[in-house]
C-alpha cells in the first residue's frame, strides 16, 4: 500500500495526532503552526479523496487490517468525500483566521490547549464523515462534542459557561439516544457495519425493535442537529463562544449532523423504510418548515448579531431537513447542496463578525452603526454573505434555494414553496437590518476609532466570500457532485 491508499485514515488521524503534539509542546505559536499544518494536510487529503472517489468509485479502508464487518471500516463514497471536503476546507480557512482572534480572546497560557481542543473537535467531525461503522460514529461524535463543550465555554462572557453546560446536557442525551438506537439495531442484526446493516435490515425491518431503534437514532441525531423543537442549545452556544469557535462549529458541526441523518435515513435504513414506511418525510417537512419560519422570525428581533445569525442557522437547518423530507432526488440534492453552501456563507459571516469583534470587542447592532465606512472590506464581506443567505443570484445561496424550490414544485407542494420564499423574505429583513446599521447610520460621536481588520483575518473571510460567488456561478462541481451523491443515496434504497 502506498501513502495514497491511506488517505481516508490520514484525513482524520493527522489532526487527531496533532492535538497531543500541541499539548506536548504547550507553546502558543508552535501549537498554532501545528494546527494550521494539520488542517491543511487534512484538506489536501480530502481534495485527493474526492478526486479519487469521482474517478474510481467508493473507497473502503480496513482499519487494523480486519475485513468488515469484524473490523472497523472507513468507507468513503461521494457524499462523505463531499462533506469531508467542506469540513476540512472550513477548518483550514478558520485556522488561518484563528491566530489573531484567539490571541485576543483566550488567556495566553491556555492557547496551546485551546488549539488542541479545536483540532480534536475537527478530527471528531472528520471521523464521523469517513467512518462506515455505526459505533465508531458514536465514539467520534463524543470526541468532537467534548472538545466543543470546552471550546465554547472559553467565551469571555460568563453566559458561555451556561451555554456550554446546556449543550453538554442536550448533546449527551442525544448521544445516549443514538447509543440506544445502535443497541436496538445490533440486537436485531448482530452487526455494526453500516453496509452490513443496510443489507440485513430489510429482513427484520417489520419488527417493533427496529422501528424503535430508528426513532431513537433520528431523535438523537435531531438533538445534535438542532432540529427545530430540539434547537434550544444552539443560539446561546453560538452567541457566547469565541469567534473562531462559532465560525468553525456553525459551518461544520450541524452539517456533519445533517450528513449523519442522511447516512442513517437513506443509506442504512434505505429510502423505502425511512421515508415511505415510516411517516418521517411528513414529520421532517413540517418540522423543517416550522423551523424556517419561527427561527427566522426570532432572528429578526435579535440585537446581538451572533445570536441573530445563530437563529438564522436554525432556520437554514430547516431548509436542509425540508429537502430531505421532500423524499425526491431534487430535494436531497438541495439538502446536500445547502450543506455545502451554508457552510460557506455562515463560515464567511461568522469569520467577518469575528474580525469585527476583534476590533470592537463586541458585535451588537448598535456597534454596527457607521461600520460600513470604517471597516469597508469586512462589511462588504458581510453584505455578500448576507446576500448569499437570502439566496440572491449570483451567490451560492441562490443555487441551493433554487433546487429546493424545484424539489417542492416537483412534489406539487406549492404552499411549501411559498413558505420557503417567505423564509427568504425574513432573511432579507434581518440582513437588511445589518446593512442599514452599517451603511446608513452615522457612527456615534464617541465611537472608538477602528482600523480595518488585519490581513490574516481578511484573507480567510474573502476566500469564503469568493467561494460563495464562485459556486454561485460555476455550479458544475458543487451541483454535479451533490446530485450524483443524491442519486446514489436515493438509488441505494430503490
Amino acid at each position, binding site marked *: *500500500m502506498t501513502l495514497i491508499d*491511506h488517505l481516508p*485514515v490520514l484525513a482524520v*488521524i493527522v489532526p*487527531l*495526532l496533532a*492535538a*497531543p*503534539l500541541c*499539548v*506536548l509542546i*504547550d507553546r502558543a505559536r508552535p501549537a498554532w503552526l501545528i494546527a494550521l499544518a494539520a488542517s491543511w494536510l487534512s484538506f489536501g487529503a480530502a481534495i485527493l479523496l474526492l478526486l479519487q472517489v469521482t474517478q474510481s468509485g467508493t473507497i473502503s*479502508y*480496513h*482499519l*487494523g*487490517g*480486519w475485513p468488515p*464487518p*469484524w*473490523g*472497523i471500516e472507513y468507507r468513503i463514497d461521494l457524499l462523505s468525500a463531499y462533506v469531508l471536503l467542506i469540513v476540512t476546507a472550513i477548518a483550514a480557512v478558520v485556522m488561518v483566521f484563528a491566530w489573531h482572534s484567539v490571541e485576543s480572546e483566550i488567556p495566553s*497560557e*491556555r492557547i496551546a*490547549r485551546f488549539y*488542541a*481542543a479545536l483540532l*480534536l473537535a475537527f*478530527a471528531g467531525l472528520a471521523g464521523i464523515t469517513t467512518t462506515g461503522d455505526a*459505533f*465508531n460514529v458514536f*465514539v467520534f461524535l*463524543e*470526541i468532537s462534542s*467534548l*472538545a466543543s*463543550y*470546552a*471550546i465554547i*465555554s*472559553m467565551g469571555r462572557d460568563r453566559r458561555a459557561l451556561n451555554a456550554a453546560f446546556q449543550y453538554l446536557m442536550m448533546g449527551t442525551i442525544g448521544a445516549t439516544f443514538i447509543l*440506544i438506537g445502535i443497541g*436496538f439495531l*445490533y*440486537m*436485531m*442484526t*448482530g*452487526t*455494526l457495519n453500516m453496509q*452490513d446493516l443496510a443489507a*440485513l435490515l430489510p429482513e*427484520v425491518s417489520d*419488527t*417493533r*425493535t*427496529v422501528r*424503535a*431503534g430508528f*426513532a431513537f437514532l433520528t431523535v438523537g441525531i435531531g438533538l445534535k442537529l438542532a432540529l427545530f423543537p430540539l434547537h434550544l442549545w444552539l443560539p446561546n452556544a453560538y452567541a457566547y463562544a469565541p469567534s473562531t469557535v462559532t465560525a468553525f462549529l456553525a459551518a461544520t458541526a450541524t452539517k456533519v449532523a445533517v450528513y449523519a441523518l442522511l447516512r442513517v435515513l437513506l443509506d442504512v435504513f434505505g429510502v423505502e423504510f425511512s421515508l415511505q414506511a415510516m411517516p418521517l418525510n411528513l414529520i421532517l417537512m413540517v418540522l423543517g418548515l416550522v423551523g424556517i419560519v419561527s427561527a427566522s422570525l426570532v432572528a429578526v428581533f435579535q440585537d446581538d448579531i451572533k445570536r441573530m445569525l445563530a437563529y438564522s442557522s436554525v432556520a437554514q437547518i430547516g431548509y436542509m431537513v425540508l429537502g430531505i423530507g421532500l423524499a425526491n432526488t431534487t430535494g436531497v440534492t438541495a439538502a446536500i447542496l445547502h450543506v455545502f453552501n451554508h457552510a460557506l456563507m455562515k463560515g464567511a459571516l461568522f469569520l467577518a463578525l469575528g474580525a469585527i469583534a476583534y476590533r470592537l470587542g463586541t458585535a451588537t447592532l448598535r456597534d454596527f452603526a457607521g461600520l460600513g465606512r470604517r471597516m469597508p472590506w469586512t462589511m462588504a464581506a458581510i453584505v455578500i454573505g448576507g446576500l448569499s443567505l437570502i439566496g440572491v443570484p449570483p451567490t451560492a445561496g441562490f443555487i441551493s434555494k433554487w433546487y429546493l424550490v424545484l424539489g417542492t414544485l416537483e412534489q406539487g407542494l406549492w404552499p411549501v414553496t411559498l413558505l420557503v420564499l417567505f423564509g427568504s423574505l425574513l432573511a432579507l429583513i434581518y440582513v437588511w437590518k445589518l446593512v442599514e446599521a452599517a451603511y446608513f447610520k452615522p457612527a456615534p460621536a464617541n465611537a472608538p476609532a477602528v482600523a480595518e481588520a488585519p490581513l490574516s483575518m481578511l484573507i480567510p473571510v474573502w476566500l469564503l466570500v469568493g467561494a460563495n460567488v464562485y459556486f454561485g456561478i460555476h455550479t458544475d462541481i458543487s451541483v454535479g457532485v451533490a446530485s450524483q451523491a443524491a442519486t446514489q443515496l436515493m438509488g441505494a434504497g430503490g
Partner: protein
Amino acid sequence: MRDLFGVVILFSIYSFMTAALFMDLDAVDVAFTEAAVGAGVTTVLMLSCLRLTGRWERRPKHSPLLPLIVVATTGTALVYGTLDAPLLGDPNAPAHQHVAPRYIEQGPIEVGMPNMVTAVLASYRGYDTFGETVVIFTAGIAVLLLLGIQEGPHTRPGRTAIGDQIVLRVVVKLLIPLILLYGLYVQFHGDFGAGGGFQAGVIFATGFILYDLVFGEGDARLVVPPDWLPRLGALGVLIYGGVGLYSLFAGKPFLDYSALAHDPVHGQHLGVMLVEIGVGITVFSIILAIFYALAGRARRA
C-alpha cells in the same frame, strides 16, 4: 432528596450494584471497569465538585408534569421496542450469530490471547479504542481549559489534609504499594484475564488520589508534578497513534499490528501490549490531572 452528598453516595452504590450485575452477566471486564470508574473515580470527582458548590439543594419549583410526559413517552417507545427483541440469554439471537462467532472462535488463534474482550478491544476494534483514548484525553484537555491546574509544590509541605487520623494513615501507607502493584498486574495480565490498560490506569490513579487525600496537599504532587500530567496524557495517545503509524508506514493498514513482527500473531501480541501501555499512561495521567484540577480549586477557594 435535598442532600446532594446522599445523592452521590447512592449513585456510587448503584454503580457498584451494576458492576455486580455485569459480573453475573459474564462481563467481567466491564464489571471491573464499572466498579473502578463508576463507583470509584466518578464518586471522588463528584464529591470534589460538591465540596466547591455546596452540599444542599434547593427544592425545585417547577411542575413535574412536562418532564413526566416526556419520560413516559420515551419509556413507552423503549418498551415498544423491546417487544420484538430477542429474549435474555437466547443463544439464537441475531446478535450472537453474525459477527460474534468469529471473535470467539478465531480470536484466541488470530490475535493469540485468551481474553477475547481484549482481543476485540485492542485489535479487531482497535480503532474504537484509539478513539476512546482520545475521548479521555479530550476530557482532560477540556477540564484543564476550564479549571487550569495548580503547579506542584517544590518542597515537602508539613500540613496534612485530615487531622490526626493515625490509623487511617498507617493502613493507607501499607495499602498504596499493594494498589500500585495490583495496577501493574492488571496492566500486563489483561491478555489473559480481566483487565487491561484502562482499568490499570484507573487503579494507578486511585493509588495517587488516595495518597493525596490522606496525606494532604503536595505530597503526591511532588512525585508526579501536575504540569507534567497533560503531557504524559499526550504521550500515551501518541504511543497508541505511533503504533498505528508504524504499521501504516510498513505498508499495512493503520493499526494493523501484524506489521510489528514477522509472525503475525506475535505482532498482534506485541501491538496489543504496546497500545495497552499507551492507554494506561493516558488514563492514569488524565484521571489524576482531572482530580488535581478539581481538588486544586477547592484549596484555593
